[in-house]
């Protein structure tokens, strides 16, 4: 049975490219389930594939004290969607480092729902978008803290860089908290490169265009600093940035 085709009225599909999704919906209508057992650890790197439309829908369950760390690069030429629902049991730890790099008319989005159901869970989500042309890059991230999930520690950091006037970034961190002893932080910025960093790089001899390209690289590459096996995603991100900058 194929799940009903989504509509834009559903918040989590609000910025989706449904026309692009339609032909491939059957393949992706059911999310893939991943379970990380109590005390276990998972580290994965999600690389882009060579297709115009790239969809990944994952439901991730973290057992007690389990840890998951995901590095993801979303850079489909037409429509890319990484959708993730994470459930954290007591003391579980979830980290997401993701980038949307988009050019031309593409839409790339990272959509997450992180559910803290046990005590003392920790989640960190860091998303960076670099967009040019008329590209759209989105992060919709909902953090739910269940009744009783005290001492939850959740953070979302979302930053986007728009290189052309026609590009669009949607950043929407969202919190739904039913416990009273929790720490939930979120920050979102859409901006330009740091003027002091630019001057520093230029004062070392980089011309303005090279300095800009280098800083943009750093803006994204900083995401992979903690990856155990980050070479492939680093290379893929560099490649994607070359087509954008």
């Amino acid at each position: 049975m194929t799940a009903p085709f989504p509509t834009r009225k559903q918040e989590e599909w609000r910025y989706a490219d449904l026309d692009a999704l339609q032909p491939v919906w059957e393949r992706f209508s059911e999310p893939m389930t991943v379970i990380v057992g109590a005390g276990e650890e998972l580290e994965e790197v999600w690389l882009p594939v060579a297709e115009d439309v790239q969809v990944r829908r994952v439901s991730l369950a973290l057992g007690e004290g389990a840890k998951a760390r995901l590095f993801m690069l979303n850079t489909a030429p037409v429509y890319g969607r990484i959708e993730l629902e994470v459930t954290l049991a007591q003391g579980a730890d979830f980290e997401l480092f993701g980038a949307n790099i988009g050019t031309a008319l593409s839409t790339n989005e990272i959509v997450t729902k992180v559910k803290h159901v046990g005590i003392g869970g920790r989640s960190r989500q860091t998303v960076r978008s670099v967009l040019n042309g008329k590209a759209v890059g989105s992060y919709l991230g909902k953090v739910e803290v269940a009744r009783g999930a005290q001492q939850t520690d959740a953070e979302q950091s979302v930053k986007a860089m728009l290189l052309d006037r026609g590009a669009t970034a949607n950043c929407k961190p969202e919190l739904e908290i039913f416990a009273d002893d929790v720490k939930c932080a979120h920050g979102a910025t859409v901006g330009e490169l740091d003027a002091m960093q630019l001057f520093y790089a230029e004062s070392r001899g980089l011309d303005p265009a090279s300095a800009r390209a280098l800083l943009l690289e750093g803006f994204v590459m900083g995401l992979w600093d903690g990856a155990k096996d980050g070479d492939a995603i680093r290379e893929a991100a560099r490649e994607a940035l070359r087509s954008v900058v």
Partner: protein
Amino acid sequence: MLKIENLHATVADKPILNGVSLTVPAGEVHAIMGPNGSGKSTLAYVLAGRPGYEVSEGGATFEGRDLLAMEPHERAAAGLFLGFQYPVEIPGISYLQFLRESLNSQRRARGQDELSAADFIKVAREQAKLLEMDSEMLKRPVNVGFSGGEKKRAEMVQMGILAPRFAVLDETDSGLDIDALRIVGEGINRIMRAPDKGVLLITHYERLLEHVRPDRVHVLQAGRITRSGDIELARDLEREGYTEAAV
């Protein structure tokens, strides 16, 4: 080598420099001392071309070329180096990549061949070693997680790698312990003491000057040079403070 004439500059429409005149001939190290807010850092930024630092009158030439007409990266390629008072962090970019691209960009601008990755790493390691910095630190993102002292030392490693003709060093000694101060002082002498090079050393304290031994010492007050002398002037200032010594 560096000639500053009647330089007036404003930051956010506020006048900071009110007619600085100063000549640093090749082969010399000049120190600039002065109280907080006297315009020392502004002078450094104006010379390096920081956006927002507007020159309203006067000028500066570097080896006969109009320094102020050049973009910051052109000044670097011409051989000018600014040691930052507060070195900037750049996450995601390793020191090795940052400096290799910077150096090769300068070399291209000068019509020189680029340095290969292997050759560059050799130079970088050597310079790090001379400044007693662990060369593994060069693999880390630029200044991220560095202590204040490590950042300043890294500025000197950058200077060693980029090998400028002229260095403006803005309070390179602040935040350094006594050993680091000696190492940095020796680094400045080793890298910049040459007949065809020059240094403008901005500092609050006389201590670094005992290591570097400037040829001239100038006092900057309210955006103007109020006194010039030799290292004895710096010692007087250290003893008596700016108010007394300037009289």
